[in-house]
């Protein structure tokens, strides 16, 4: 099965119904995308599929076949972090960091679709992403900071 992952063509010999999460983690070695619940309740496995945020635990491999997949590893580079990643650093948003791949992928999509979200709009889009460290106040702050950075760019 072929996928375009972070701009590269990748192949994996997997069952049709293997979730994209496990294709990425166990077959393609991209472990930045995290397992949290397996039932789309926590958002830790959020990636972009053809430009839309999806819970990779709920996307079967066959549904992602041929698709363009963007994971946390492809969002920015150490030299040129994505503005959302930079805002996460600037606000020191992460604690344990485990949920943050999903949070950042969800936030990156939010700002693509809404360059200046209100707190309520942030809540609406980000409430599927759980954080047990309770970094929510800083996640909100980081999204506003990234939005400002993107508007300036």
């Amino acid at each position, binding site marked *: 099965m072929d996928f375009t992952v972070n701009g590269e063509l990748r192949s994996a010999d997997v069952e049709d119904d293997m979730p994209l999460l496990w294709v990425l983690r*166990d077959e393609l070695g991209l472990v930045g995308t995290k397992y949290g619940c397996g039932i789309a309740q926590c958002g830790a496995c959020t990636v972009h599929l053809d430009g839309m945020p999806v819970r990779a635990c709920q996307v079967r491999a066959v549904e992602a076949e041929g698709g363009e997949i963007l994971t946390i590893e492809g969002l920015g580079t150490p030299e040129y972090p994505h503005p959302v990643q930079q805002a996460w650093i600037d606000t020191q948003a992460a604690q344990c960091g485990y949920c943050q791949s999903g949070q950042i992928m969800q936030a990156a999509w939010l700002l693509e679709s809404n360059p200046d979200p209100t707190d309520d709009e942030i809540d609406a889009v980000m409430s599927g992403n759980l954080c047990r460290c309770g*970094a929510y106040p800083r996640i909100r702050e980081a999204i506003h900071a990234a939005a400002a950075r993107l508007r300036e760019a």
Partner: protein
Amino acid sequence: MPRILSRRTFLMTGAAVGGTALVAAVGATGYLASLDVEGLHGGRLDGDDAILNAFVVIHRDGTVVINVPRTEMGQGIHTGLATVVAEELDIPFDDRISVVFPTDAHPAYSAWTNALQVRPEEASGPVAWFGRRVLGQLGMIATGASGSVMGLWHPMRVAGASARAMIVAAAAERLDVPASELTTEDGMVIHAASGRSLAYGDLAQDAALLTPPDEPRLKSREEWRLIGRSQPRIDIPAKVRGEAMFGIDVVLPDMLHASIRHAPVFGAEVAVIRNEGRVRAADGVLDIAVIDGRHVAVVAGSWWQAEQAAWLLDIEWTETGNESETSDSLADRMYAALETDTPHDHIDEGDIESAFAAPDARLVEADYDVPYVTHACMESMNATAVLQNNLAEVWAPSQNRATMRMGVMRGMGWAGVRPDEVTLNITMAGGAFGRRSDLDVVAEASCLAARYPGRPVKVLWSREEDIGRGVYRSQAAARLRAVLGPDGLPSGYDAMVATQSIMNAMSGRNLPVTVGPDGDYLSVEGLEKAHYAIPSRRMRSQNVPSHLPIHFWRSNGYSFNTFFTESFIDECADAAGADPVAYRRDLLRDNPRHLAVLDRVAEMAGWSDPLPPGRGRGIAIEECYRSVVAQVAEVTVSPDGEVRVDRMVCALDAGLAINPDQVVAQIEGGIVYGVTAALMNRITIEGGAVAETNFHDFAVQRIANAPRIEVSIVESDGPPCGVGEPGVVPAAAAVANAIFAATGRRLRSLPLAVTETIGERRTRSVLPAERA
């Protein structure tokens, strides 16, 4: 008869029992006295690494590796402790610094100061000897009790200062000038008089072979350039790129994956797997293994295949006799225990009987309770193990190296293997909250590794196993009584809590000896209220055992006792017709440190500003982990009784804040954790088993409805105190007191706003029935 044990007596007794075999094995105290336990007398070279001491390694290129023997689980400890080393080493806090969790069990890494509740810089005499020489040898390298900075900030300052002194001494020799003429700056040793300078990287190889100074000079506060200023966290850049390696991310060549099924009713064993043949035939399945007669592991080439096949398992479990236990039956036992007369006595001060018998006594009495809860770390439980040539190596996001090692020995023992050597790698942890000090998943992975020698095995629990088959904070019930004197303040205070002893249950599963329930301070912490001026106080506890695996949970006893006591103090204030802040101010009149925190939080919250109907403020204050923390919750209760926590304001005296921004972050996160437990966390026991399975029925706070949070650090001259747990501690009482202020309704059970379970979970009205 119940015994009264102080914390220290209890811990030393417990630890001494555990240490007996070791002391016997090593023979005499002469041997113990000879051990290097300070970690500062072992400079050596290892290839290009100049190892200056147990904490500091310097490479030829000037990069510095700081050994931080504490688990990074979100609290920023790698950054905080690296900061104090960098400060004394006199180097900038930049990307020349990296942090590793060392794999060896150097005595200097031990958390003995946590166990003995002392600060290393203050410990002396027999306590210091016992801690360093005996406990230090036990490999208890643990991360918890909000104690990592308290326990290591001083030793690691000394390590940094000692390394710097050795580098300066090496430079003095090289330049043939007195060390007193040398200064350090930006990783260089400078001889201003001659204009010469040498880089640390060039000097470290020589320095490592010098004798460390006996007492290196530490910088004074005025000289600090890093401590007390918020340094950016070392681990965050990798975390935002998805590059941080958590336990779940460990990938080894030829690795097997396993998913586990544990008994629904704790303690049951596997009677028979009814459909083993069918599961063995499932895609990718390589084996089915029964671990210790109790757990069933499905082993496959990928975790997804193992997990899919595990769902097919049809397992018959043995009867345990606990199949009819429910949350209610267990709560009934706790309330019944409150009526019995053989509790464990912890404190009996003043004259409690006379206080309550006084003819003009005004009695205030209330019962409270909390449910079971679980940790629900975002990274589910996992461990990876391999056994090759009878050498074991294990990777896990563990909070405790000693229990991790025990897990390896126990798990391999189940497979009939005793490894010659064990190498332990502690990875980043995706949340921990006390959960990861249990050895369970490590033992499982080790058992499987011993079963397939040469093949690494990664065990990952599904979220359903983590929530429904894991370990839990105990349910608890308390009866609080007070008599109010003519001034309205309590003249007598009598507290009893019934719960399952945390120390007893945890040690039974994880330590060589079972300690408690006698003297289990973890179950009563927060009940004491020693900071309140109350002439007669009594504090007692009842251990109510159950079949549930009870464990540490962020802030342990404080997580329920402070809810009980700070709600109760509000009830006393109400009975006295007093304002809750003014009432506490009277009770704290002898404690300026507490008063400063109380006044700060009241001012921040605008305590005396009126609120519209349906809104209310509540306050709670606690002394815990040597910190003093107070919070004001502001809530809105809608006409139909739904509660929303709008704002949490917190003031904190945590002594010196090495990294103020990270202290604030810990408190913010602790508040979210505490408000989550206050409003919605509940584990329900039905038929002896946990009913909740995943995040859809074990609700946790999401970003919507997360309160606005304001944190203020009260300046202090004292040494650093704990900050990982204090944020959690007052939250539930503050919210309950705010609901009382808004509605007149006193809620004495957690969770405050969610009732019912499984399929029927709904928000509870916090209003009385006639008003809802």
